[in-house]
């Protein structure tokens, strides 16, 4: 798409937030039922990693 490169910044920001939200939420949910509080920060960090990976996957190869 023509405007993709122009607004890549917002998309990258979205990747990081969405990654943290999803995997952080997943970690929190599992931690909530298993009573392991540490799973939430671990999930958020993993999500951040996935977000960075998604950015590289989408923009780093072209």
């Amino acid at each position, binding site marked *: *798409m023509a*405007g993709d490169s*122009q607004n890549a910044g917002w998309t990258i920001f*979205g*990747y990081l*937030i*969405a990654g943290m*939200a999803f995997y952080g939420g997943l970690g929190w949910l599992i931690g909530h039922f298993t009573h392991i509080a540490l799973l939430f920060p671990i999930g958020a960090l993993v999500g951040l990693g*996935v977000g960075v990976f998604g950015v590289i*996957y989408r923009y780093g190869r072209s």
Partner: protein
Amino acid sequence: MAANVLASIAANCPETSAHLNSAARCRYPAPGYPDSFTYGPLFKIGSFTFNKPMLLAVICAGLVIWFFWAAFGKPKLIPRGVQNVGELGIFFVRDQILRPMMGKRGDNFLPFLVSLFFFIWVMNIMEIIPASQFPANSEIAFPASLMLMVYGTYTYLGIKHQGLGGYFRNMIPSGVPIGILLILAPVEILQYVLVRPFTLAVRLFANMFAGHILLLVFTLATWYLLSAGIGLLWSATSFVLTIVLTAFEMLIQALQAYIFTILTAQYIGGSLEAGH
């Protein structure tokens, strides 16, 4: 705006003009969320209360309608007067926002983007207009309702042009190994259905909220530090900063309207396009 803050200090301060050097030593009335952003009702209809931000929104909508009505009510082949200015605005939105994002195919959405851009811009400008001095977009409800319009539009168009399954399939990059797909797919989908609309509304809201507080801090400091002694120097510094930051806010106001509109164009453009 400042009146609310002044009223709140008047409650716990014996003096009506609480300067730094006054005998009562009232503290600096820091502008903050409830004091500087809530307004009492102007009038009530049953349980519905109509307050200043709502009035500003109505006035801004009226101003935009009136302007474009004056410009294009009786259009002439050779534009004169206000029609020139109107065409300038429409060409700006078309050539700087719509065409780079959506191409010629998106020309149907020109009226939507033009109204969006000018409505947000005029709403933001209300921050620095005397007697108004409040950006209605610093109340989250206003950007949120604008965002809901955009969100509804691009979701509807995406499903219409790509089908329900295709819309979600196109969110995920094609040609991805299955292992990576499982990890990445929820992030991609979450980005479309949650993060995009959320950041669209919050970006506009937070910029206007922060800008309003920024201007209030220095406006109130100008008044608070004012005294016959050396305090005059600090007061003057605050005053100069108020002027500089007002100019800075004018830039931010136009920029936020531009960013909101250009992202809207990008999202709608993405929905029109099958598989990107």
